[in-house]
């Protein structure tokens, strides 16, 4: 009676020791695949013989997927693994951005250090707002985080010393050993490095003690507690970790854009983060990245499409902007109707299908 997951390991692949049995990548193939993907990405910003491999536009998309993807992974740890819905993730993302800008502008911390430090500061804030999780659960908690979103947004627009108030603040370009990495082509590597490190860290975390504790708290907190898990600790900790990822993602965002203002961190972005992890697949590390890519590329695709629609039906140009906005909403709705378990699930099914092919039943 093999469960569905057991069947994903291809036939003929027998584990000979526990170490092999507990790698992040179930097969050497998938591991090789991942390494190849990272290497390939390293080439992305290069120019070969004067022609760019990727246009600046495409590179920009990748960078966005990178920093949003980092923050989204944090949210997935909180929502997908620990089961605590947060509607305030954008605020933490924003806090990281402001914190990093502030550290480098006002305290003169080099940006290289400001980014992880901003992550740590955000962790503190995240844990502070996560404290209610000790007492509040489920949707009540979700809406408490919704409140956190508005409270922090308000803070951003009035804490002049920290955020530059409603006008926002400039963020320094990234530099390392006095060497400035500001252009997209350079910054890409910074983001890539962060993505690789933080995704590996996340995947490791989730397969070890504390990661299991998160999932246990999600699946059955009463029995988790009786198994020796301190509920409050893990509930708050997962807010902290989520905030750390958000903070680092936000800091990268700020230094990439070189300008930070409260408008980037509205409830809409919080919801988009949720969209990323739901579309990618709750509780799936790689799915998070897929979901992020989906949410980043969707508006672009819609933009391109609406442009051509506008060309065909000039009468529609008037409402094009709204059509575009509406199309994004609609795409989310349709996606979830047809793929409610997310991209990661679909991906698994596809893999399973090919593994078992032609005996796919």
């Amino acid at each position, binding site marked *: *009676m*093999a*469960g*569905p*997951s*057991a069947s994903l*390991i291809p036939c003929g692949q027998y584990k000979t020791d*526990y*170490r092999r049995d*507990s790698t992040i990548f179930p097969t050497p193939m998938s591991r090789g695949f991942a390494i190849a993907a990272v290497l390939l990405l390293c080439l992305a910003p290069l120019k070969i013989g004067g022609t760019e491999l990727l246009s600046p536009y495409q590179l920009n998309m990748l960078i966005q997927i990178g920093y949003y993807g980092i923050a989204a992974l944090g949210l997935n740890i909180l929502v997908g693994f620990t089961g605590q819905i947060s509607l305030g993730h954008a605020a933490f993302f924003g806090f990281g951005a402001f914190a990093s800008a502030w550290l480098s502008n006002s305290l003169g911390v080099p940006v290289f250090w400001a980014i992880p430090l901003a992550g740590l500061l955000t962790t503190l804030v995240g844990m502070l707002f996560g404290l209610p999780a000790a007492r509040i659960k489920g949707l009540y908690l979700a809406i408490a985080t919704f409140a956190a979103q508005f409270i922090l947004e308000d803070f951003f627009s009035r804490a002049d010393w920290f955020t530059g108030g409603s006008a926002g603040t400039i963020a320094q370009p990234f530099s390392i050993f006095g060497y400035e990495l500001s252009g997209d082509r350079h910054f890409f590597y910074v983001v890539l490095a962060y993505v690789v490190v933080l995704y590996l*860290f*996340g995947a*490791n*975390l989730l*397969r*070890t*003690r*504390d*990661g*299991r*504790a998160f*999932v*246990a708290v*999600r*699946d*059955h907190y*009463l*029995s*988790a*507690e*009786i*198994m*020796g*898990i*301190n*509920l409050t600790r893990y509930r708050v*900790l997962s807010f902290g*970790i989520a905030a750390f990822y958000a903070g680092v993602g936000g800091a990268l965002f700020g230094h990439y854009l070189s300008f930070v203002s409260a408008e980037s961190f509205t409830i809409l972005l919080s919801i988009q983060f949720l969209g990323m992890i739901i579309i990618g697949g709750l*509780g799936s590390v790689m799915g998070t990245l897929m979901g992020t890519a989906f949410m980043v590329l969707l508006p672009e695709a819609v933009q391109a499409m609406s442009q051509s629609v506008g060309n065909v039906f000039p009468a529609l140009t008037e409402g094009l902007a709204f059509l575009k906005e509406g199309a994004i909403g609609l795409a989310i709705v349709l996606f979830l109707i047809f793929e409610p378990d997310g991209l990661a699930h679909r991906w698994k099914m596809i893999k399973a299908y090919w593994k078992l092919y032609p005996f796919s039943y």
Partner: protein
Amino acid sequence: MQSETTPILQARDISLRFGGVQALTEVGFEVRPGELFSIIGPNGAGKTSMLNCISGRYSPTSGSVLFKGRDITRLTPNQRATLGLGRTFQNLALFGHMSVLDNIMVGRHHLLKNNFLTGGLYWFGGAQREELEHRRHVEDIIDFLEISHIRKSVAGTLSYGLRKRVELARAIAVRPDLILLDEPMAGMNLEEKEDMARYIVDLNEEWGMTVIMIEHDMGVVMDISHRVIVLDFGRKIADGLPAEIMDNEHVKRAYLGVDDDEAA
């Protein structure tokens, strides 16, 4: 099993109320190390509530619980687990989306030292070594309970009987000195009950765990337990050897029914 050592668990005059319901009234008993101790009683008698008081889910309105001579009445459930108290649940309480393996690994939680930092750094902080080492212990448990074929299955998709077994495995993984089993055989057929009985006896005799078991199957209770108490309407109505209990008129009336033991 009549050693003179101190009891591993003492329940002293435990009373518990929920609003208008008096679930337990001054229930007291002692369990000696190495005992296989059963609690029986009609539905709603307060058996599960009693286990909940021991494992810390409920805190008794009055009375106290002593574990290995130490008063644990005020401790949280997770603190009790670290002291060596494990349990299973009447209504399945597995982590439904985790694999069987991970479910059992959760039982090792308090024995593991790695945390989110060392865990995240996996290869560099010793977490890997520790995980693999504990994995070995877990595999022993898996072998013992004969669930190696479902090791990687998602717990939520297993059949009822298997889930019960995984739950037992998870409780064993806590490495408890005292394990509390709430109706471990409910919903099983004869064959599975026999398996389960065997595991429990082994657990008790070979792994040296003290067991407190709630069970309605009188055949099992009478065969394997060393001592039995009977609860009825939240009160202890009998306490003794299995055979004595079977003959107790009060117990027959309240619990077994007047006929034979055919229901078992």
